[in-house]
C-alpha cells in the first residue's frame, strides 16, 4: 500500500517544505528561515530529521528509507584542490550526500527532470504504465536507476503535469465573459477617442523608459553583446567598458574590428537605412517614411554595423512600429469583430479549451508559479522534445557545490545524518 502522508502536505502552521510545485509549498519555502532553536542535541537532531525527511523521500516509508541509507558519505575532489594548501578552499558539504540515494529512485528522477509536479505524481504515472526505462515499461517508483539508464514518459502526462489546469466549461465561459467585457470597454474607448487610445497602446511602457533614440541604441547594443562571437562585424570598443567583455571576447572583437577596418567603412546612406527598416522593422515602404527619431537610431545602427538577428529585436519592433506608424483614425478596426471575425481575436475557441480532446489547457501554457522550481539537475540530461532523460551519474558533492537539490540548509542535513547514524541503526 503506498504510504499516505503522515502530516498535511501543505500545512501553513507546520511550514514543512515539500518536493512539490504547489504554490502553497512555494510560500512555505519563501517564508522559511534558518534558525537554531536552543534545544537539546536530540531535539535538534529530531527536528532536522523531521524537516529533511519531509522533503527528501516523503513518499517513502521510514523502513524503505533506512534500506537505502548509507553511512559513508563521499565527496569528489580534484587533484589541484588537494594540493592547494592556501586554506581558502570552499567547504565540502558532504552532509548533503545523506539523501543522495533517494535521488536514484525513478520517481524522484522524474520529478527532477520536471516530468511530474511531485514524486507522488511521478509514482502515479509509473504505476499506470506510462514510463519506460531503457525501452522497458517499469511499474514501480522505487526502481533504482544506474548511470546510463534512459527513462521516458508519455508526452501527454508531462504536458498535463507541467501545463495549466484545463478549465471546466463553466469556468471557461465565466472567464471569456470577463475578457469580453474588458475588450468591449476597450473598443468603446477606441471609438470615442481613437487618438488617445492609439498613443496609449503604442507608447513605450514605463518598464522600457521614455522614448529615447540613444537609449534604444544602447538596448540594441546590449542585446548583441550577449552573442559576441561571430555576429559583431565592426563594433567600436569606445564606450564599451572592459568589465563588459571577457578577455576572450575582447580579443575576438579586436580581430573583427581589424578585419572590418581593412575592408573599409560603410556609409550610412538612405538606401541601407530603408533596407534595414523594411527588413527588420516591417515598416511599410510604400509612402510613409520612418519618423526622424527612428531614422537617427537606424543610422547609428548601420554606421556601427551591428549585425542584428530578427528574433532579438521583436521587442523593439513593437516600439518602432508604434513610433513610426502614421496615425490613422481607423487603426482599431483590426480588432472589430466584423473585420477579424471573432469576438476575442487572440483566442481560438473557448478559454483553455481550444482542443477539447486534450486533458490539459490548450493551447499548451505552463502552469503558474513554475519559475522558482525550474532547476536544471546536474546528474540528468533531459530532452524536452521527446520527454526522455538520461541518468548520468549518482549526484555527487564537490567543494562549494552539491548536486543533491535541497532547499534546506547544510546543518539540518548533518544533524539528520547524526540522527540516523546513531539512533536508527
Amino acid at each position, binding site marked *: 500500500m503506498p504510504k499516505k502522508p503522515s502530516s498535511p502536505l501543505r500545512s501553513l502552521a507546520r511550514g514543512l517544505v515539500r518536493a512539490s510545485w504547489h504554490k502553497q509549498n512555494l510560500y512555505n*519555502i519563501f517564508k522559511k528561515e534558518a534558525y537554531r532553536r536552543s534545544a537539546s542535541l536530540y531535539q535538534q537532531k529530531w527536528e532536522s530529521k523531521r524537516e529533511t525527511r519531509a522533503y527528501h523521500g516523503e513518499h517513502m516509508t521510514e523502513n524503505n528509507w533506512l534500506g537505502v541509507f548509507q553511512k559513508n558519505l563521499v565527496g569528489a575532489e580534484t587533484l589541484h584542490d588537494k594540493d592547494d594548501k592556501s586554506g581558502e578552499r570552499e567547504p565540502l558539504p558532504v552532509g548533503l550526500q545523506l539523501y543522495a540515494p533517494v535521488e536514484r529512485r525513478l520517481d524522484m528522477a522524474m520529478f527532477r527532470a520536471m516530468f511530474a509536479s511531485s514524486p507522488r505524481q511521478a509514482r502515479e504515472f509509473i504505476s499506470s504504465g506510462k514510463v519506460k526505462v531503457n525501452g522497458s515499461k517499469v511499474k514501480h517508483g522505487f526502481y533504482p536507476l544506474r548511470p*546510463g539508464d534512459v527513462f521516458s514518459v508519455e508526452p501527454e502526462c508531462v504536458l498535463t503535469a507541467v501545463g495549466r489546469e484545463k478549465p471546466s466549461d463553466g469556468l471557461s465561459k465565466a472567464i471569456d465573459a470577463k475578457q469580453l467585457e474588458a475588450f468591449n470597454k476597450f473598443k468603446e474607448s477606441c471609438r470615442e477617442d481613437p487618438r488617445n487610445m492609439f498613443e496609449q497602446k503604442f507608447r513605450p511602457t514605463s518598464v*522600457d523608459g521614455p522614448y529615447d533614440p540613444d537609449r534604444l541604441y544602447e538596448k540594441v547594443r546590449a542585446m548583441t553583446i550577449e552573442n559576441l562571437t561571430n555576429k559583431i562585424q565592426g563594433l567600436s570598443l569606445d564606450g564599451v567598458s572592459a568589465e563588459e567583455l571577457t578577455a576572450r571576447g575582447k580579443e575576438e572583437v579586436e580581430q573583427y574590428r581589424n578585419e572590418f577596418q581593412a575592408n573599409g567603412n560603410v556609409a550610412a546612406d538612405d538606401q541601407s537605412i530603408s533596407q534595414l527598416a523594411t527588413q527588420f522593422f516591417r515598416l511599410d515602404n510604400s509612402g510613409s517614411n520612418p519618423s526622424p527619431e527612428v531614422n537617427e537610431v537606424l543610422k547609428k545602427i548601420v554606421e556601427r554595423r551591428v549585425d542584428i538577428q530578427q528574433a532579438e529585436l521583436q521587442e523593439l519592433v513593437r516600439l518602432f512600429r508604434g513610433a513610426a506608424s502614421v496615425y490613422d483614425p481607423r487603426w482599431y478596426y483590426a480588432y472589430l469583430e466584423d473585420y477579424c471575425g471573432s469576438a476575442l481575436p487572440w483566442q481560438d475557441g473557448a478559454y483553455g479549451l481550444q482542443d477539447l480532446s486534450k486533458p490539459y489547457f490548450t493551447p499548451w501554457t505552463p502552469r503558474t508559479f513554475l519559475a522558482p522550481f525550474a532547476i536544471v539537475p546536474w546528474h540528468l540530461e533531459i530532452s524536452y522534445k521527446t520527454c526522455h532523460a538520461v541518468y548520468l551519474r549518482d549526484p555527487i558533492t564537490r567543494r562549494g557545490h552539491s548536486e543533491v537539490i535541497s532547499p534546506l540548509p547544510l546543518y539540518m542535513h548533518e544533524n539528520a545524518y547524526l540522527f540516523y547514524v546513531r539512533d536508527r541503526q
Partner: protein
Amino acid sequence: MPFSTRNILVSTARGLSPGQLSTNGSYTQVRGVRIGPGSYLNRDYGLVGRHTLPRSHMIQWFGEKGPNGDFYKNPFCYAPWDHIPNYIPHTSSKISRDEIVKKMADSNYRKGVNENTYKPFPLNSYTKTSFVLSEELREAILQSCRDPQMSLWQVSARYGIRKERVAATVKLAKIETQWENEGKITPDLARYAHRMYMMMPITNGRLSQNTLADKLGEEPLEEIVPPKTAQRNNIQIMHETAKFSPEDAASFFHAPEAAELMDRQLYRDMPKVVSFQGVKDKDLAKKIKQWKGRYTDVVFKGNNIWTAIPAKAGKVGYRYGASRDHRKKHRKHKDERLNI
C-alpha cells in the same frame, strides 16, 4: 503590489505594535504570535472570520487575482523568457526577503545577474542550477562527435562538458531525429519544449565565454570519487619516520593511483572494473598475469584464478527491483541503455 500596506491587526502580547506581523518582519513565527481580541475585526482586508491568520498572510502574499484566476502581480507567477531564472532571491540579514521581492518588479533587477541568481533556495547556497546546453553548443558537440578523428574525451575537453553528458546528448539527439521522422512531436509538445528551453538557464560552455552562465556552466572534468576500498575505515600501523606516498596508498587500497586514474579518465577510455570471473584454465593465467597491476591484483584461490576484467558499466550483477519485464516471453526487451 502584492504586498499591501494594509496590515492585519495583531495583539501586542509579544511586544509587537499593531500592524506588525512579527519582530523580524517575517511570516514565520506563526505559533508564537498571539491573536488578540480585535484581530478578527479586520474589515479593511475583507477577511473577517473567513481565514486563519497564517492563511490570510498567505493570501496577502499571493496578491491580486486577474480575470483568469492568475495572481498576475506576484513576481513568481510567470516563467521567464530570457534564460535568467526567477528564483526566490538570496538576501543578507539587513534586507528582508519581502523588500527584495518588491524590487523584483523593477526592470533593472534582471540585469544584475550574479552567482546567487542561479541558486534557487536562499537557505542552501550549495544547491545551484545546472545549465541546458544552448542550441549552438549542442550543434557543435554533435558535429564534433560525427568527426571520426575526435574521441569522446576530446569533445568533452574541448567544450568543457563531461563525457557522460556528451554521450547522453548524442543519444537523445538520435531519439529526437527519430521522433521527428515519425511525426511524434505534436504542436503542443514542440510548444512545451520551446517554452522549457526559454525559461531554463543556458550555457555555451567553452564555445564562448561571454556571460556568467557560460563560466558557471563549465563542468569540472578532473574529478575523482574515492574508490570503494577507501570509503571504509582503514588503519595501518607504521613507523613514525616512515613515509607514506600516493603509491603506497594506492597499493594499500588495491586501487590505481589518483594521478593514474585521472590520466585514464582524461586520456583514455578506462573500462570500469565491476565483475570477477573465475578462470579455471591455467593456460590463461599467463594472459591474466599481464593484467596484474594494471587494474587489480590476480588472486589464486584453490584451483581458480580470480581477477577483475574490464566490463561495461551496469551490465553485470543482479538487477534489483520488480521489473523483470525483459524475461517475460510476451514482452520484447530491447536494451537501450547508454553505455558510457
